[in-house]
């Protein structure tokens, strides 16, 4: 049985000012996402700005209500449950996000902030010390204030605060994107150590393909609120099937001057999520698009360990 399972999850937002008697327009930031996270694994979610990856992260944690869809943790429904049930569930899933400085209160010491979730859940406060040690913040470091810490240390505090409740799942939204390379490597290593030591499962949301490739077991690629491809890491990078996955992998700058991009990317501008194209969302930028793509949105079809949403990828993937 899978661990965390989302089925047809969707969330819409309204755009523009709704005039008197005028129906407000809305669009789906996440439009029918079905995915599973297995215990102890890291699911990478990649895509460009506006693809809905951060909205998806918040939906998975119940931080924003879903318009439709089902979310289960070990078979137990998590959406629309009672407040007490929700609190118990919420302990098991925590969020870590990019802006560590913004996530912390400048007037509270590091220790107080890591203790805060324990207070809220009425738990003994010694969990905070364990969490701080797990992320490598020892002794007097815990009595400092956020302005006394570097970017990497702040991110460690945010991770410690998430760990204090001894969760099973961490949803990480761009956790290393704001960090310099040498610090980024430290945090990526820390996350992998924590996963091994505590058996954590990660949903790792990022636009940085090289980090996702490093840390993930499986990777899902999102475009305009939908998953367009989802496969085990090595399969996805060695043999991307969806034209968008190929474009994304090709466009990502590789730190190797001998593999400069030979072909020019002529893929136009990203679409406006509030005004998505008809048919397949990627067709206006797709070099392979045919008539059918402009009319009908492809379904996400499963073949073996991979799922792809493209009319032009035939079974068994040719």
């Amino acid at each position, binding site marked *: 049985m899978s661990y965390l399972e989302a089925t047809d999850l969707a969330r819409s937002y309204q755009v523009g000012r709704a005039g008197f008697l005028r129906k407000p327009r809305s669009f789906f930031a996440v439009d029918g996402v079905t995915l599973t996270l297995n215990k102890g694994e890291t699911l990478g979610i990649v895509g460009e700005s506006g693809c809905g990856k951060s909205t998806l992260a918040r939906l998975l944690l119940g931080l924003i209500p879903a318009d439709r869809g089902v979310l289960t943790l070990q078979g137990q429904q998590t959406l629309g449950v009672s407040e007490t049930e929700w609190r118990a569930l919420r302990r098991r899933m925590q969020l870590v996000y990019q802006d560590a400085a913004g996530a912390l209160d400048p007037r509270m010491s590091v220790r107080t902030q890591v203790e805060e979730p324990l207070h809220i859940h009425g738990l003994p406060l010694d969990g905070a010390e364990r969490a701080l040690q797990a992320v490598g913040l020892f002794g007097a470091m815990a009595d400092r204030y956020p302005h006394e810490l570097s970017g990497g240390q702040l991110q460690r505090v945010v991770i410690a605060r998430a760990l204090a409740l001894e969760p099973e799942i961490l949803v990480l939204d761009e956790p290393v994107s704001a960090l310099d390379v*040498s610090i980024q490597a430290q945090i990526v290593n820390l996350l992998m150590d924590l996963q091994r030591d505590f058996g954590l499962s990660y949903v790792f949301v990022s636009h940085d393909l090289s980090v996702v490739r*490093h840390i993930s077991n499986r990777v899902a690629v999102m475009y305009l609120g939908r998953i367009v491809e989802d496969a085990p890491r090595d399969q996805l990078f060695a043999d991307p099937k969806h034209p968008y996955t190929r474009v994304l992998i090709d466009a990502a700058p590789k*730190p190797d001057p001998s593999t400069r991009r030979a072909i020019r990317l002529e893929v136009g501008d990203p679409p406006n999520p509030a005004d998505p194209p008809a048919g397949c969302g990627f067709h206006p930028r797709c070099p392979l698009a045919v008539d059918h793509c402009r009319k009908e949105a492809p379904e996400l079809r499963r073949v073996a360990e991979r799922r792809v949403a493209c009319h032009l990828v035939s079974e068994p993937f040719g």
Partner: protein
Amino acid sequence: MGLTVNNLEVTIERRRGTAVRPVRGVSLRVEPGRTLALVGESGCGKSMSCLAIAGLLPRRARISAGSIEFEGADLATMPEAQAQKLRRRHVASVFQDATGGLNPVRSIGWQVAEAVRLREGATRAEADREAIRLLGRVGLPDPERRAREYPHQFSGGMNQRAMIALAVAGNPRVLIADEATTALDVTLQAQIIDLISDLRDSLGMAVLFVTHDLGLVAQSADDVAVMYAGRMAEIAPVARLFAAPRHPYTQGLLSALPGATGQSVRLTTIDGTVPPIDALPQGCAFAPRCGKASALCRDVDPTVHAGVACHHVLPAPVKTKRVFA
């Protein structure tokens, strides 16, 4: 021609009479038709160096030593008005925040045309025609119609292209791109990089490309300069730098990249953090984080020899009496 920077030093005066030096003796050369990438982590002085070259230093900062040679003259020491006139004509800059760099109450076409008028002294009508041509050149679809639109009607990528059109109006000799693609998605970033390379080749511009992204450096630069704590650590042709980095800091940076070590194994890290510029260690600023550091490194700050500033790459220099403590 191009632009040559020698021993550039930037000083920021702080309150209570203290001063810090975010750029401490940087030398580099940007040649026509070539791209020099300036890389380093936050606070290494790469942006401050650019601002000094572009004449856009913030109020409290000034060039306190060194020269910026351009067209046989020194931009650092000539009268301010004359230097700014030369820069306005020949040195263009593109920064990260394109939308913030454009005037919200003027149309895109007006702004590009203004740059054309200032640089070339063209008439209104000529400048308008040139603006539309430039907007087409940077890949804006339907430039005649788009030229009448305003920044808020453009996407981030379109604004960045408009900024580039504005920068290259009047064929500048030097283009400084400071994290110009950092805020963009990878597909757009790739297109903007291609665009800058095309313009560099066709206009023969010298490009100074500032970034923290080593992947982008590998993809777009001819030469690379690596900065650390306000100093140049290593400068080399791109293929050499990635194939055989010589400075321990460059080696550390490259091996810290995901993908350098193979998947799912630990990444190589550089221990510690960059020292703050008001508390630099004596000697080599990288020594506290460097596995090779010796007593000499902690004592004497190495200078750049044959493209690298490290005591352990070349035979150690004879220790001389320090002038500054």
